[in-house]
């Protein structure tokens, strides 16, 4: 089984349909593709968000995503996966992150996509800064993101 892994960090938006087509093109062994996209919300609680700015650690971000991709490939029978994370200024309604997982059957694709997102949120070196009417502030990390990543750890 060959597996295509695509990892990109970019300022530009991505086209989900095009990315799925690229992942499955010319293949007849894939029976399931799961797509997760993270989108910038226009509010956080009662606060209106004007935009997010995403900072990352070039080099480490790619390496950390690649490590998680390898772990996913070793845990589930995947035919391929794509992770695209945007950086820079992102307005409400715009895409932030895309995870695609392809497998012969849906269970592996669903599980691997959720695993990748949980690990990305807790371990990939990206930081969000929110712009609102009262100014800008770095987004606080949430303990439940660490908990979500930890539940995948084998005991």
């Amino acid at each position, binding site marked *: 089984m060959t597996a295509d892994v695509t990892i990109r960090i970019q300022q530009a938006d991505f086209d989900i349909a095009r990315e799925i087509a690229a992942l499955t093109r010319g293949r007849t062994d894939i029976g399931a593709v799961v797509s997760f996209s*993270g989108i910038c919300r226009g509010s956080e609680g009662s606060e209106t968000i004007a935009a997010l700015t*995403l*900072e*990352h*650690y070039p*080099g*480490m971000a790619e*390496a*950390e995503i690649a490590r998680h991709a390898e772990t996913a490939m070793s845990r589930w029978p995947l035919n391929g996966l794509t992770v695209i*994370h945007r950086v820079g200024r992102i307005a409400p309604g715009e895409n*932030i*992150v895309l995870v695609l997982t392809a497998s012969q059957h849906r269970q592996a694709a669903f599980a691997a996509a959720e695993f990748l*997102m949980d690990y*990305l*949120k*807790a*371990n*990939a*070196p*990206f*930081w*969000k*800064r929110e712009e609102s009417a009262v100014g800008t502030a*770095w*987004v*606080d*990390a*949430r303990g439940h*993101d660490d908990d979500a990543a930890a539940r995948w750890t084998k005991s």
Partner: protein
Amino acid sequence: MKVKYFAWVRERVGKSEETIEPPPSVRTVDELIGWLAKRGETYAHAFETPRVIRAAIDHAHVKPDASIAGAREIAFFPPMTGG
């Protein structure tokens, strides 16, 4: 060794990277944080709560007790909020 700072650690220190030469007595990540915190007001502010600071050596996450021996690049940053 090269040190990099990200997000509010970078803003508080006032620079994104620099080259430092800590003394041989500084052997671990948390000892390096303690040493950096004494370099001035901006550093003291950036590293005032060491337990929330995350570190990476040569692009891999490390714990506070990790050795810095042989490190080419050490990065300090707050907990990650991507995805």
